């Protein structure tokens, strides 16, 4: 198996997967809705939150990114996988000298690329709105609020976007894992949403764990905590953007990135275990 050839094939498969995705109405409409929602947060300015307004817009934007991003990641990955199975284009592809792992990795990267686009657009829109409101606010309140030239660290908005994107990667990978053993679209989507909720609430298990006595129950909870990634790790938004003293350490960001990459790769490999024996 020649590694450069392998990468070429993965790149090609990811390319068509991505192209197919952006041509779907679903992606485009979800993107528009998300942009509209992020933009609509400015209508709340009548409450005159002061600097609180910026915080509100940021939270709202991050919330929309997570919410719609998760939906898109689950539905798009499912759709991209099953389209290929149902239209039997996978049959044509896998009858060529293509490894099934290359196929899965290509699908994963295509979906991940789609999420990169989505995340980028949303964070750019969010930053634009924040910048506009910041300017308005500064004009009204004068410059005394300013300590270092700006209220907002825009780099952190993108950092948050990046971490969310890593999370979407894990989601796309576990959707592929579910899809690898399921026969229908709907089943995959439902199971994936359950997994998403478990990962989102996983910190509860961690809390329980630390309060438990040694025993098999504790091992069980520990096991669950390891199988399902902890999505709360990626939500360091509170410390981001505003809090000057508590800016996240670079090493933390690297750790979280590594954590995300590890789980993504692990789920793709698990998907391969099922997919290898799947009848096309």
């Amino acid at each position, binding site marked *: 198996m020649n590694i450069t050839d392998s990468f070429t094939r993965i790149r090609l498969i990811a390319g068509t997967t991505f192209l197919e995705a952006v041509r779907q109405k679903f992606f485009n409409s979800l993107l528009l809705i998300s942009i509209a929602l992020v933009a609509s947060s400015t209508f709340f300015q009548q409450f005159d939150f002061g600097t609180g307004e910026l915080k509100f817009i940021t939270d709202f934007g991050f919330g929309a990114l997570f919410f719609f991003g998760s939906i898109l990641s689950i539905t798009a990955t499912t759709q991209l996988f099953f389209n290929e199975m149902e239209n039997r*284009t996978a*049959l044509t592809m896998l009858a060529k000298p293509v490894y099934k792992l290359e196929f899965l990795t290509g699908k994963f990267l295509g979906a991940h690329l789609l999420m990169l686009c989505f995340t980028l657009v949303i964070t750019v829109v969010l930053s634009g709105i924040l910048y506009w409101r910041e300017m308005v606010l500064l004009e009204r309140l004068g410059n005394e609020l300013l300590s270092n030239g700006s209220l907002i660290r825009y780099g952190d908005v993108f950092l948050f976007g990046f971490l969310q994107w890593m999370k979407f990667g894990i989601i796309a990978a576990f959707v592929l894992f579910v899809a690898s053993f399921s026969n229908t679209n709907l089943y995959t989507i439902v199971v994936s949403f359950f997994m998403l909720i478990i990962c989102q609430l996983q910190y509860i298990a961690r809390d329980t764990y630390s309060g438990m006595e040694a025993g098999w129950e504790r091992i069980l909870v520990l096991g669950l905590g390891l199988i399902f990634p902890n999505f709360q790790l990626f939500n360091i938004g509170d410390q981001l953007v505003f809090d000057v003293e508590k800016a996240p350490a670079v090493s933390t960001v690297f750790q979280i990135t590594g954590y995300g990459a590890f789980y993504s790769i692990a789920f793709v490999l698990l998907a391969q275990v099922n997919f290898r024996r799947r009848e096309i």
Partner: protein
Amino acid sequence: MATPAICIRNLTKDFAIGMRGLKLRAVEDLCLEVGDNEIFGLLGPNGSGKSTTIKIILGLLEASTGNCEIYGKPSKLVDARRRVGFLPESPYFYRYLTGRELVRYYARICMVARAEIDAAVDSVIKLVGMTEAADRRVGTYSKGMLQRIGLAQSLVHDPQLVILDEPTAGVDPLGSAAIAEIVRELKRRGKTILLSSHLLAQVEGLCDRVAILHRGKLVREGRVDDLVEEKDAESLVVQGLNAEARAAVEAEIKAQGGRLARVEKPKLSLDAYFLKEVHRREIEHVTQQEGEEEL
């Protein structure tokens, strides 16, 4: 003896259906050998296991028991498919690519060298007669065109073995004849072709050898001529004989110890008749057009 292109030994395939471990036997104890540079037909009614057999040959399905090799390599290995081209049954492709982009895409997937891609793509598109429509989106293609572009993508990396699943299903007789002609051309170029079909008349004059499947079992296998020939009879096709002369011939046959089994008018097959008629009109149409241009 040279390694056969395809070698299938005692192949059985069961599909698990339903919850209670119910099994459906799609292929049963099949043994087949396809020699190099041969046109081999896999025939049988719908559901007789042709596609299943083909998928196992391509390593897309795993055999329940038995084994299958392509040029001596187990078909489970990806490496065995390096020089194999495949046209699936009623193929479907990424609709938003043009025909040319599609063929090019698969050429790159199959690692055709960069310097050769353009020439390879052009030549297969020409071979299947899709030059004019090559820059239209695949989504706008008719059934016959999909089949042709599918054939092009299966040939673009110059495979030694070409596997075609129902290449003529749903294609008009003209298209089928064109596909048959392409298959003959491939044989002239030294390739091996395995094709499946339930349209027996179309493959009769095409295949060197055929295997007939029924409910997953091999019914017959051999050279087409051997299978359909009536060994103990010959037919004489005679023209311009009046009644007297015919009576004389019949008497002579009797005198020689033969027996006149039946007398019939030789018939053209409907396919052949259709092709002849369409071909004649096509020529008339072209000469007429040329005539108009000259005026």
